[in-house]
């Protein structure tokens, strides 16, 4: 079976862990995330007649200064950048943040996900889309389970490229 390492990154509290919780059953305690800054989960998915083992690295969001070992980003086959549609500070510096992820991981394409769509009206969401300087791949709600699967499928497709 093909195995791929994929990353979930993004600011503190945007919902990375919640998205993963929706998508997989976990064996390791979430306490690892606050302790060492990452927790690895696994999910076997099917994509275009192929079975792929996704090893999902949930990297703790930081407010800037705390350091996460750079090694967490190495050898990744795809990355998802998650931001919180309801909190401007999680997408205002998206260019800079994406550059950092690209530099550390060596990846070109990153899947962009706006989460917590349940907190906004359709018009408000449109406004956010206007404000975000890059193309958003998916608008999700980890709370209601909307488009979570799709987001991970998009990530899988990236990993296989």
């Amino acid at each position, binding site marked *: 079976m093909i195995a791929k390492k994929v990353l979930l990154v993004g600011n503190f509290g945007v919902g990375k862990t919640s998205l993963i919780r929706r998508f997989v059953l976990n064996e390791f305690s979430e306490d690892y995330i606050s302790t060492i*800054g*990452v927790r690895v989960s*696994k999910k076997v998915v099917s994509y275009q007649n192929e079975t792929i083992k996704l*090893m999902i690295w949930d990297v703790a969001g930081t407010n800037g200064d705390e350091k996460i070992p750079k*090694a967490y980003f*190495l050898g990744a086959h795809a990355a998802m950048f998650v931001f919180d549609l309801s909190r401007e500070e999680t997408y205002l510096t998206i260019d800079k943040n994406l550059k950092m992820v690209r530099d550390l991981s060596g990846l070109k394409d990153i899947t962009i996900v706006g989460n917590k769509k349940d907190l906004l009206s359709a018009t408000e969401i449109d406004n956010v889309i206007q404000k975000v300087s890059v193309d958003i791949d998916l608008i999700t709600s980890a709370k209601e389970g909307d488009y979570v699967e799709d987001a991970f499928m998009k990530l899988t497709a990236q990993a296989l490229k």
Partner: protein
Amino acid sequence: MKKTPVDSTKDNRFELLRELLLAEDRDKFEALSKEVILREKLKNNVSPLVDEKILDLREKFPEYFGDTITQTIKVQIRDSQDEVVEALYPIMGKLVKKAIVSEITKLTESVNKTVKEKFSIQEILKRFIRGKKNDADIVLQEVFEPIIEEVFVIEKDSGLLSGSYSRGNIADKDMVSGMLTAIKSFAEDAFSKEGQDLEDIKFETFQLSIQNFKSIYIAIACSGVLNASFKEELSDRIHNLAEIILRDRSFLSEEERLNTLIVKELIEA
């Protein structure tokens, strides 16, 4: 050796990490204790009592048996053999394995330092085990024998598992590989000087050794008392294995084939 200044937040995080790692160990320990209790057909309601005993034993092992063991080693055991065996007998097997192994390891280390050549650990063990063939003997044998429990061949950067060997049934090898890689990165990042790799993580029940190679690392978990000759031989075999893999990298993408190779080079060899 130069000492790196200790950062208190890092230190604290390391403490937390240790607790997390041991918590899982404790769970395993509890599971084991249940299993053994069943096997030994103890009455259901003694289980909490036994657990308490185990904890007590774990904490006070040196106090209870340390003297006896040190003594026995010093006087070349002979006479107190039965006492030790008797004392260990009621709590049997894997339950005490952990405590005994760590104590014996400590003791052998210190004894070996002072009495260097006079007693080899093998000699001591031979004396311990020689004689009667009863359950206690088997327990003791099981306690001391160094055994390779798990082998993981892991891609360094991605943490993806390329191949493995397992004596028992480990939770999920892919996740263990990923988390191990993460913990390794974390520890290397936080505590080591540049370019220095993490090599040994000591858990309570077993010892994990890590050997780094260019694009892969090999992690091996062993239980029992790891004497120098066992370690040396193992290290040689690991290097042989790594050499074969790195010369023919197709092994890294063919899990079954690599698994067979691991068994051939490390377990059967």
